[in-house]
């Protein structure tokens, strides 16, 4: 449809077939043919040496909605039982950054939905919100898809924000798609980076990616939201735009955006939204909200994470990992392989389908480093990898790599940990 091969230019070199992540290009003799698996990711367009593949999407004139009617950035300020979830505070700071990129008069508003939640505004203002819309109703005490979708959709229709962002929590990922579908607008899931200005996107891409940005104009006035996310189990990064509909909506992975330093005594505009909601609007009944009695694993806030993988050989290996974590003041993490093997609970899982983490130190013990695991931890400040296999991909991202038996190495680290100052002093002394 939109990705087309220009038959006269195609030389049958098959480079596009090799670079296509989706097996969406077949060879018909010496001619590349795009098949129905094509997702228009444009990898082939970029890699074709003969410029024989074209993206014709831009050529089609679309019916435009009046984009200029939409203004300001909204952040869904998720609360549970009257407490804000962490990602809400991360996102008001991020929303503030985006609003300022769009223009000096563009504001970031937190959207609080619940029953008696107005006490939460002070934290939202401290972490960057210029204002807050509050929607309160006793029917909104517990989260329900129906109730929250209705009041949020009605508010968006009324106030017309340009951007709406949500934390990619189990609630955000339930609510956002429903709202986007009702508004017939686009939604991008699990973003790890957001940009408005083309120049910011170029800066980000040049510093962090292999993307060739030479075709992007840093002086461009175009200010659509550029939403970057891992896809394909973290094997591919895609930047998604929503050019024709508003609002532009994203969910953002918890723990990825940094909170701003809280502004003491910050205040903001408060708008109470009165939107109709009756019991018959809600088609489910929340019988009970059960808090896990298990130890709460706070991987996203941890400064040190000690993770174990398949190399532990069995569930008892996590006893050593726990001892290690206790010694270094860290939290126990795991790979998907260890969770799938039933050795440890899913709540410990780090990776694309688990939790995204960025601790100061990440110890990967017996973890080979599948892409989907790397996608969830490679922004850690320091990565230490301990693995028997010298060819394990985890070593490619590790700041410190130790090839060896983790059952020998980890106890040595535990034993030496409290003497680190002395070991370092002796080392410095010996160097001098």
């Amino acid at each position, binding site marked *: *449809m939109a990705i087309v091969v220009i038959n006269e230019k195609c030389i049958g070199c098959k480079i596009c077939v090799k670079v296509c992540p989706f*097996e969406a290009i077949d060879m018909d003799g010496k001619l590349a043919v795009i*098949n*129905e698996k094509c997702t*228009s990711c444009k990898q082939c367009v970029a*890699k074709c040496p003969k410029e024989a593949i074209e993206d014709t*999407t831009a050529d089609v004139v*679309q019916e435009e909605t009046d984009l200029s009617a939409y203004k300001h950035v909204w952040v869904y300020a998720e609360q*549970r039982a009257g407490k804000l979830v962490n990602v809400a505070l991360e996102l008001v700071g991020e929303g503030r950054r985006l609003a300022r990129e769009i223009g000096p008069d563009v504001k970031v508003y937190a959207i609080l939905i619940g029953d008696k939640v107005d006490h939460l505004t002070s934290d939202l203002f401290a972490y960057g919100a210029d204002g807050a819309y509050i929607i309160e109703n006793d029917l909104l005490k517990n989260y329900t*898809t129906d109730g929250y979708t209705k009041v949020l959709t009605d508010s968006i229709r009324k106030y017309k924000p340009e951007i709406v962002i949500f934390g990619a929590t*189990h609630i955000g*990922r339930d609510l956002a*798609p*429903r709202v986007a*579908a009702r508004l*017939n607008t*686009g939604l991008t*899931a699990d973003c790890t980076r957001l940009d408005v200005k083309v120049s910011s996107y170029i800066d980000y891409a040049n510093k962090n*990616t292999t993307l060739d940005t030479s075709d992007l104009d840093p002086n461009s006035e175009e200010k659509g939201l550029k939403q970057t996310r891992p*896809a394909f189990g973290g*094997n*591919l*990064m895609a*930047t*998604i*735009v929503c050019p*024709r509909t508003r609002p532009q909506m994203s969910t953002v992975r918890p723990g990825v955006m940094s909170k701003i330093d809280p502004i003491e005594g910050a205040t903001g505009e408060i708008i109470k939204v009165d939107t109709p909601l009756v019991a018959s609007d809600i*088609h*489910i*009944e929340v*019988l009970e*909200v*059960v*808090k*896990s009695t298990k130890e709460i694993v706070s991987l996203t806030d941890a400064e040190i994470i000690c993770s174990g993988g398949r190399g532990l050989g069995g569930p008892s290996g996590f006893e050593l990992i726990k001892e290690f974590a206790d010694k270094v003041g860290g939290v126990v993490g795991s790979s998907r392989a260890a969770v799938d093997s039933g050795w440890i609970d*899913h709540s410990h899982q780090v990776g694309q*389908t688990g939790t995204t983490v960025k601790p*100061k*130190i990440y110890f990967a013990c017996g973890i080979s480093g*599948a*892409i*989907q695991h790397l*996608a969830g931890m*490679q922004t850690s*400040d*320091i990565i230490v990898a301990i693995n028997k296999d010298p060819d394990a*991909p985890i070593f*490619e*991202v590790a*700041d*410190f*790599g*130790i*090839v*060896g038996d983790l059952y020998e*190495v980890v106890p*040595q*680290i535990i034993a*030496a940990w409290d003497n680190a100052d002395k070991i370092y002093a002796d*080392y410095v002394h010996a160097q001098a």
Partner: protein
Amino acid sequence: MALKIIVCAKQVPDTNEIKIDPVTKTLKREGVPAILNHDDANALEEALRIKDKYPDTYITVITMGPPQAVDMLRQCLAMGADEGILASDRALGGSDTWATSNALAATVRKVGDYDIIFAGRQAIDGDTAQVGPQMAEKLGLPQVTYVKQFELAEDMQTITVHRALEDGHEIIRIKTPCVLTAIHQLNTPRLPSMKGIMAARKKPVSTYSAADLGVDPDKEVGLLASPTNVYRSFTPVPRGKGTMLEGESNEQAEKLLIGLKAKLAI
């Protein structure tokens, strides 16, 4: 009253088996198997458990994808589903989640009669978790996502589910018809039996085009109708390899602590 269940499934590349070529930095996907998406297998398994209990239950598996996705439908039939429907058309290619949900909602309407729609929470190639809820919205049905426990009452209309949260779960009651999205904690999917594989050959599988579904390629499905587009895509940059610490394990441990101290990490 025989229960009618629709299961939404997707054929996906096993993303765990994909590696990046260290030289060309492109995805190496030779020999990467196409599989039934994990969460979708849990969705199907829960439907099959209902059928185990109430054998007159009729399970239709629907999917959108290329013609090869029929193989996955046959696998679902071999596990015990009754019928497979594939929505396949070049006009559906490039659909984002909004457009995909339009196509799947149209497929569900084509099936017509249903009590429960099960889907997987998300597919491992896109990881969006958006299509289930968006399809539910298009069909005007209530939804529960992240279902980890399921119970159907004797009246065959009242369902009680546990919905997983990061810090616990909710217990939710919902009436049919509804959309439920499954996560892997829900159950352990069965393997197809030899008898099931034989039986699957005789079960009906149909393919619908965009025209069969009555969806408009300019306005509802496909790349051009999709509100989101890919702006750029790229492979992630490796961090770059650091220092390998040599020696006996006690020496490695000491070198590590020295390194961490030097970086002021501890």
